[in-house]
């Protein structure tokens, strides 16, 4: 469950104040946030992820007001409840696929089971490259690894920042289907921000900034 109220944000060295419309999502509900670049999409995503702290308003995730958490609590909350999907950088370069997932669980302070991770990778169809380093993966495998990294620790919310902008139509659909399906099976809210109009039909719930 997510609830934001009068969310405002201002960068230190900039006078522009971003004001965001209120968002209310009940369990399992997904949201597509559309808007041109520079309008503050990523800012909104980072506010929800606790990577930025708002200059006004409130964010409640599962009844936790995250703007009130200390830095350390926030790190912990983020590790356990948030999953992030990025456009290009999906995982830590120096680690293999398996090690990345282990590290993800380690930082989230969740139990690490190689068998569970293996099954999960199997399900995402990247089990065969579990011992490969990130740079050795193909584009498609990387996308799937990115999704795996955002889901493996069973977060409350999966936040995706332009997950499809570098993909062709076929892959775009595949990735989005997988993301939605994974969020669904894990009972997580999925929030995708994008300027990519192709994925609009996949969401009932959209927000234009």
């Amino acid at each position, binding site marked *: 469950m997510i609830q934001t109220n009068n969310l405002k944000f201002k960068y230190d060295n900039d006078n522009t104040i971003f004001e965001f419309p209120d968002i209310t999502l009940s369990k399992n509900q997904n949201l597509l946030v559309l808007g041109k670049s520079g309008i503050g999409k990523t800012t909104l995503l980072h506010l929800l992820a606790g*990577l930025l702290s708002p200059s006004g308003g409130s964010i409640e995730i599962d009844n936790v007001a995250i703007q009130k958490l200390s830095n350390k609590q926030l790190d912990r909350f983020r590790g356990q409840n*948030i999953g992030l999907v*990025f456009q290009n950088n999906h995982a830590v370069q120096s680690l293999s696929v398996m090690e990345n997932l282990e590290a993800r669980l380690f930082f989230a302070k969740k139990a690490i089971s190689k068998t569970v991770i293996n099954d999960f990778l199997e399900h995402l169809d990247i089990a065969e490259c579990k011992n490969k380093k990130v740079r050795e993966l193909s584009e498609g495998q990387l996308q799937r690894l990115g999704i795996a990294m955002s889901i493996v620790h069973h977060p409350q919310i999966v936040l995706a920042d332009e997950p499809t902008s570098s993909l062709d139509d076929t892959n775009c659909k595949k990735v989005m289907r997988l993301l939605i399906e994974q969020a669904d099976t894990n009972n997580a809210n999925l929030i995708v921000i994008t300027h990519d109009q192709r994925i609009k039909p996949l969401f009932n719930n959209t927000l234009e900034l």
Partner: protein
Amino acid sequence: MNIWKISLKNFRYKPLYTFLGTLILSVSIALLVGIQQLDKSFRQQLDNSLGDIDMVVGAKGSPLQLVLASVLHIDNPTGNIIYEEAKNILRNPMVEKGVPISYGDNYMGYRIVGTTQEFPALYNATLKEGKFTEEPMEVAIGATVAEATGLKIGDTFQSSHGLAETGGHAHNDLLKVVGIYHPTHKVMDRLIITGLQTVWDVHHHESEPSYSKEAEVVEKENHHHKEGEHHHDEEGHEQETEHEHHEERDKEITSMLISFRNPMALLTIPRSINENTNMQAALPKFELERLYQFTGVGVKTITWIAYAILIISCITIFISLYRMVRDRAFDLALMRSYGANTFQLIKMVAYEGFMIAIIAFGIGVLLSQIGIYFIFGMITDQYKQKMPFELGYQELLQTVFLVVLMVLFAIAFAIYPIIKMNISKILSHEK
């Protein structure tokens, strides 16, 4: 999975990052450890060589030279003194014992020292096989001599005149090995010990070259016989006939090594010898301290150079860690988005810094040991002296402490970008 593991993976992912820092740090550690060990071994070797010798009495000249020649057996002696006169010193109740030594010859560069049975005792040397020389022309050899020359009990050899290996001429007299000593790691190891009589004998007829060969042989036999008895007397009862006493008066030795019963003697005896006799007294401890002051300059210089390199290596490590932190900013920010806190990332960088330090330490100590192995080899060749090859861990500990301090500095500066990290900014500028 833990922070250590991630650090290790980071370290192995791009080892070239830290290669230069590791290399420079190894060199400075090698220099620091090496010079400390060298200095310590050197001093230990010299201090060791003193044995129980508190004072050396010899002919007038440079006191340092007297000590170098008579105690360390590396320089030429200052001259000779009359044995009888030197013996007078022993009458002083503060003197525990005095061991006369008399130089003359060498065998393959190893000095032949005419002395008494008390000499090996100064160095706590014990016989490995055979016995101490009882008859003239018998010798007992130190461990290094035995090893280097291959001489065994019963072997005979000709000594060459003088103390230098080359030059001089060989004596015709054959010396016979009757004893071999255990290693002491002191000067004793590289000496050939014989009775005073042997040295006197060999040089006695040296001074009478006009003898015909036949006459010489006859004379030598007589002389041997007589001197053999005399030698016996000297060791035993100190009873001497008028004739022998007269001869004894002319006998010369190179120096007398004295141990005191009472440290107070250090204050009075040397001065009275220097003022009232034509001999000089030198205090080995004091002279060696003076020597250290000269060698100390070199040691200090190298130590300072090592410190300078240590600081440079610290800067290099800082730069490599800092670059790593900057270049991996996205990975680090990613880990923050996974829930890692600042402290965990700092640990990650610190562990990498310590890995550099540990590897550099291993390489550095190895390098220093190889270096010292060669330097000791050179010393062994040149001074016929084996050096104790041991690494004092107190010196190591001091170096470890310094290196840890330097690496901590490097880490402290390198983690600045982590503390100031703006995760959102890094993640939103992904390319």
